[in-house]
């Protein structure tokens, strides 16, 4: 495959900078700019957004000129499962309590590894970790974490 892009990483990073800078500038354009001696809420963000966009453009330009590293394949399975596990933990923590939310977090995230097997030893380990966390954080350290409404763990 021959594209004119020599530095894939630079190209990708440049696009991220331009996109984030663009969003920040677009939203920031709604804030009051003010003047140098009396800056509004939009002054500093606008300066930064423009700077970020400029740097992003520079990165993209450089990616055509200088050879760089390839980006490589995205590890979709770990990425999605790890993020999903985290979000599930957030969603389940209050309704189900700490221990159950932890078990879900561990189960879903562990599936991200290709060495993942559903075996009873690992399951026991998971339950032990969840209970240990409950004991250490809630009972011992008194951190106010949500408990399960039915069985209190």
């Amino acid at each position, binding site marked *: 495959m021959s594209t004119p892009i020599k530095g894939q*990483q*630079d190209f990708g*990073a440049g696009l*991220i*900078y331009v996109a*984030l*800078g663009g969003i920040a500038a677009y939203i*920031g354009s709604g*804030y*009051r700019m003010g003047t*140098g*001696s*009396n*800056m509004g*809420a939009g002054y*500093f*963000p606008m300066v*930064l*957004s423009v*700077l*970020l966009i400029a*740097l*992003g453009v*520079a*990165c993209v330009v*450089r990616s055509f000129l200088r050879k*760089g590293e390839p*980006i490589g394949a*995205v*590890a979709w399975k*770990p*990425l999605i499962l*790890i*993020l999903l596990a*985290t*979000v599930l*933990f*957030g*969603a389940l*923590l*209050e309704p189900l309590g700490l221990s159950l939310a*932890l078990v879900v*977090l*561990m189960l879903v*995230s*562990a599936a*991200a*590894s*290709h*060495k993942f097997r559903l075996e009873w030893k*690992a399951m026991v*380990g998971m339950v032990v*970790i969840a209970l240990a*966390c409950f004991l250490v*954080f809630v009972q011992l*350290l*008194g*951190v*106010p*974490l949500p408990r399960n409404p039915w069985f209190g763990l």
Partner: protein
Amino acid sequence: MDILSNLALGLDTALTWSNLLYCLIGVFLGTAIGVLPGLGAVATIAILLPITFGLPPVSALIMLAGIYYGAQYGGSTTAILVNLPGESSSVVTALDGHQMARNGRAGVALATAAIGSFFAGTVSTLLLALFAPPLADLALQFGPVEYFSLMVLGLVASIVLAKGSLLHALAMIALGLLLGMIGTDVNSGAQRYTFGMPELADGIGFVAVAMGIFGLGEVVGNLEDEKSRTVMMKRVTGLMPSREDWKRILGPIFRGTALGSILGILPGGGALLASFASYALEKKVSRRPQEFGKGAIEGVAGPESANNAGAQTSFIPMLTLGIPSNPVMALMIGALIIQGIQPGPAIMTQQPDLFWGIIVSMWVGNVMLLFLNLPLIGLWVRMISVPYHFLFPAILVFCAIGVFSLNNSTFDVYVMAVFGLLGYLFRKVGCEPAPMLLGFILGPMMEEFLRRALLLSHGDAAVFVTRPLSAALLAISALLLAAVVLPAVRNTREVAFQEEG
């Protein structure tokens, strides 16, 4: 002698039974989590932060400092035994340390790292005690103009010292500064970048950002190429370096300590550059440069001393100016604020017991590391040998509990997930996230000082160059930037970092 009475006060604070205990717990936990491959000092501190919430401020800070040293030490242990550096500053330790382990000299390598770190820690604790008070006096005269210029210097230095491309470092700082803008604007009360979410009114939490990028992002990155590791653990015997070894490590330890102490004060991951620079230096002055990379003991002694010295002296700008010089210090500042202490030059005069207690406890922590870790090596080896597919769910557990318990908010858990995604993206495109975190911390402060400075001067930007202190700081920044662009310096910078390759 002022210093002596100050140190005596510090000893009084640090040597109470409870503080000794917290220091010990911190050092132990820090090492335990730090030896786990793929977890650096930032992630370790972020994970263990919630444990310190219930403690009084002095004990909390003492424990956090202990965690920091422990994590660093643990990182070196992993680097030597498995060739998997837990953090970037022990990358160079892995080069020769792991080779030594392969040659059956793992024990000597570990002992050398411990001795070097201890010596460097002792010297830099004294330096800290000597230089912090005059710096804090100076800082008390700082106005908004000087503070702004100082932060510019800090950010510029972090660009210069960051590894990788300057363009990326600059962009990441700008991005970090922008992220710091999220929330309520203190001057006008305007909501900025909150997308109408009330949870964002106070801005996004630093811990959630750090854990997302350094915790989740790293886990996904590590799962990308899951490979089995071989631990060099058959027998870790023969800890004591021989007479010949001692002769070879003394010089590197002295040079590493000096180099690390100086570079650590500079903002922007001084400890990282210190270990790279020390390795390059030792290779240059050595009579046996061909041994480097094949298990040269100098290649362990120098960088490890430099690394620890840099870690200690990086407390100087944090404690005296309230400005973090690296993400770890940013976390420390976060911890201080959680404890209700405003970091800055006033700490030293208003809470001398806190200030000197922390300084002395750093040395105490180093002593503990020296005596605790070598006997416990067997335990660390067993922790390292836990396979990664059992480990990372547990890492996530700590991240999730830590982030949630900071504010009791599930929103922060989601923020962490978003930054986990960003962290992985940055990793894919080769961006170093550390400068972004610095920008994120400094962003709101910089804007505030800039506004105040310009308000006082009626919009005249010339104040930044007419006030002598500020002009000096900006001149140093300009020199630093110019130096990096100059080809000669650029080359040495690349040489210093290329060793990693």
